[in-house]
């Protein structure tokens, strides 16, 4: 509508208008197309997004911080790593801590907490002497601390100790560092609701009952010893009176690190990755999946499937559709009749059922790359009928045009008329509908893999990754498993926008004709 309004205005002769008419007159079709496309903002943005996605896909190995097939069973569903920018109130290069995990005794869930080993420790022993240990110096291989905790119940009649425990930890949870710096901590619980849990606890209730009415519970925490392991296997334990200073090992996020070996683009052997951290820590930007594999890495490798099925699919579909549609439209008669009935039959079967039954014909244990090819072939098998019907319609109308008749009168062979005169005239439609049909292939593959008929573990695809989030208990606690869906959505949205922009750009009016 806006274009129409603009045309109605009397054209003023300005430099701009002159330039415009000059461009329309003398630019090549391709240049005009690019010019029209550039005016489309959403199309430009989507093109950039697609380019980024495809670059990430091509160099997936390089961009991935982790090996996509390496499982870390002690890190299943580990949450996204927390990145720290400050250390002791000073800005430093971004770093993360390692994580430790334990099972929640009530819910049996694995709970992760940032933690790290001690790199450097200064303290005072019970004799008043200063001690100092550094990891890797004087043959020190590990520094662990002995934590004590003491739970005491205070009743109206007397006090009673409920639980005393000592625990030697090499991995120090981040949550304990404040307590360590303060040199121990005592917490007093007077909250009635929490106290009630002590009264009802099967182990404590017996002890609590004997001290009269429970008034409070105090929990004392502290560190009473440091234990040092040496290279030769010996161990030394020193009782502490104070901690002066300690540093937890920080894992700085490094650029261009050495990691697992791969072949860039399939033939250049390399082991450099864009970023990463030293082992044993793992840098999970998007968290980990059920096997402790990095979700980001899996997404990048999954895109190698999800982003290529579309192109490979339309290549087959369009070859088939062009050929069969062209033949049906040009020759007509019984060829047309048979082909069109065949397309009708194929289009009458719901596509997902057809996909799955076709997949079921093939053996389930094919090698992964064959499975991938088969999925593309199956998807194209579903796609060609619609395509060839449209091409047939176009060929039917173009066949009537004078230039085709002229070509026929000049005695050109039929094949040449179809390929040189008729098909090129359908090219605008073909390019646009190709772009707009890519999302269908992406969705088809994702749906198949989601249901377990497509790409299989350990290979990766966005649909397959989403299948892990199908269980509600998983989905509820580990929402980062939904991220492949976001990528799926963005890719499809970008293709849709790009296709719309192409359609607008290829519109003869936009080209100035």
């Amino acid at each position, binding site marked *: *509508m*806006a274009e129409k309004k603009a045309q109605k205005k009397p054209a003023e002769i300005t430099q701009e208008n002159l330039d415009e008419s000059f461009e329309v007159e003398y630019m090549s079709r391709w240049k005009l197309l690019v010019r029209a496309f550039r005016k489309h903002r959403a199309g430009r943005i989507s093109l950039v997004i697609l380019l980024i996605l495809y670059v990430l896909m091509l160099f997936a190995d390089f961009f991935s911080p982790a090996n996509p097939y390496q499982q870390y069973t002690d890190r299943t569903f580990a949450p996204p790593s927390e990145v720290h920018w400050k250390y002791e109130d000073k800005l430093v290069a971004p770093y993360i801590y390692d994580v430790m995990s334990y099972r929640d005794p009530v819910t049996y869930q694995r709970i992760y907490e940032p933690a790290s080993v001690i790199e450097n420790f200064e303290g005072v022993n019970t004799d008043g002497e200063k001690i100092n240990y550094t990891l890797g110096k004087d043959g020190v291989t590990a520094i662990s601390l002995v934590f004590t905790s003491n739970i005491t119940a205070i009743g109206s009649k007397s006090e009673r100790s409920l639980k005393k425990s000592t625990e030697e930890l090499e991995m120090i949870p981040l949550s304990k560092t404040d307590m360590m710096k303060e040199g121990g901590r005592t917490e007093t619980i007077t909250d009635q609701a929490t106290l009630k849990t002590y009264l009802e606890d099967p182990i404590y209730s017996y002890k609590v009952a004997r001290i009269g009415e429970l008034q409070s519970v105090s929990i004392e925490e502290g560190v009473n010893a440091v234990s040092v392991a040496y290279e030769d296997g010996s161990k030394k334990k020193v009782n502490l009176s104070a901690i002066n200073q300690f540093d937890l090992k920080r894992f700085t996020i490094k650029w261009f690190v050495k990691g697992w070996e791969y072949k860039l683009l399939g033939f250049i052997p390399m082991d450099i990755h864009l970023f990463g951290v030293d082992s044993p820590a793992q840098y999970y930007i998007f968290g980990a999946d059920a096997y402790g594999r990095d979700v980001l890495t899996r997404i990048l490798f999954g895109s190698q499937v999800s982003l290529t099925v579309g192109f490979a699919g339309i290549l087959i579909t369009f070859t088939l559709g062009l050929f069969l549609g062209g033949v049906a439209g040009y020759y007509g008669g019984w060829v047309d009749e048979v082909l069109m*009935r*065949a397309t*009708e*039959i*194929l289009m*009458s*079967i*719901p596509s*997902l*059922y*057809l996909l*799955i*039954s*076709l997949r*079921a*014909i093939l*053996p389930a244990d094919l090698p992964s790359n064959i499975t991938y090819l088969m999925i593309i072939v199956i998807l194209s098998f579903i796609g060609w009928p619609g395509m060839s019907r449209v091409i047939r319609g176009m060929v039917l109308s173009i066949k009537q045009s004078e230039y085709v008749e002229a070509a026929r009168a000049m005695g050109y062979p039929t094949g040449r008329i179809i390929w040189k005169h008729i098909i090129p005239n359908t090219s605008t439609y073909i390019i646009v509908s190709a772009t707009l049909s890519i*999302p269908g292939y992406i*969705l088809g593959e*994702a*749906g198949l893999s*989601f*249901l377990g008929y497509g790409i299989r573990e350990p290979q990766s695809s966005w649909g397959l990754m*989403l299948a892990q*989030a*199908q269980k*509600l208990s998983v*989905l*509820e606690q580990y*929402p980062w498993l*939904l991220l492949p*869906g976001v990528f*799926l*959505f963005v890719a*499809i*949205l970008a293709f*849709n*926008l790009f296709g719309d922009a192409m359609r607008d750009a290829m519109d003869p009016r936009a080209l100035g004709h």
Partner: protein
Amino acid sequence: MFKYIVRRLIMAIPVILGVSFLSFIIIQAAPGDFLDQFRMNPSYSQETIHQLEIKFGFNENILVQYGKWLVQVLQGNFGHSFQYHQPVYNIIWGRLGATLLLSITTLVISWVLGIGLGIFAAMRQYKLGDQVASVVALIGLSIPNFFFALLFLYMASKTGWFPIGGMTSINNSEMGFFQSIGDYLWHVAGPAITLGFSSLAGVMRQMRGQFLDQLGMDYVEFARAKGMPRKVVVYKHALRNAINPLITMFGYTLSSLLGGAVLTEQVFSWPGMGRLTIQALNSQDLYLVMASLLLSSLMLVLGNLSADLLLAAVDPRVRKRFQ
């Protein structure tokens, strides 16, 4: 008119036959059959399996099997399901309620909202409202159904506003009549919103485009020039003309009424036709799959027919062509 309908139905027969034959061949071409699970099981003797093979007709040529099945179907018997030990007819009948409930609520959501938003957007062309509506439509068009379903489920589990799957609450049988209906609607909300959101976009875009085309026509300008109130011109003249192509579209969507939506039903564990068919495909429950496929291709034929008939019902020009 009657002649036309009969001709259309007769023309559909070879297509439906083709669909059934092709599906039969494809399903039977898959390695193994329903009895594989018994062959693996040592507690079934060779003899029992052989008897079962004869009972199910697996020992015969594929073409003979197909012929027998076809004769059966023509007699109104869709055969027995292997896994449910029940006539296929009963099983599909049992799933019909859930399937229709979901597809009808989906239809209502997508069409009421789609037409409303389409009119709204067309009336505010290129303004903020139009742009917001088209962004919503674009999102609906681009978001994969099963991903949206998972997002919805996540939201439901975190907020508790919606149930997390299934069709009824556990205590549904104890509820009163209206409470029970409310319970059904509460459960259908998730899958229906998921499916409705994705099909809303098509309706909305079509409505907006058609409406704008009509508003630009000369007769609208003429009616306005004649001094007719804007409301009457827009809602009585332009809207009625704009809605015609949508009626055809509506007819086509009728064909998906009984098809079910596999992925969405899977995520919401909705007991519809989609899941039934997938499970049947998985266990190679041949006759159940065949009945379901036959049903959907029949619905497709009827849907296309109803699209034409609906258009004839509302548009006198089309009606004239039939006569």
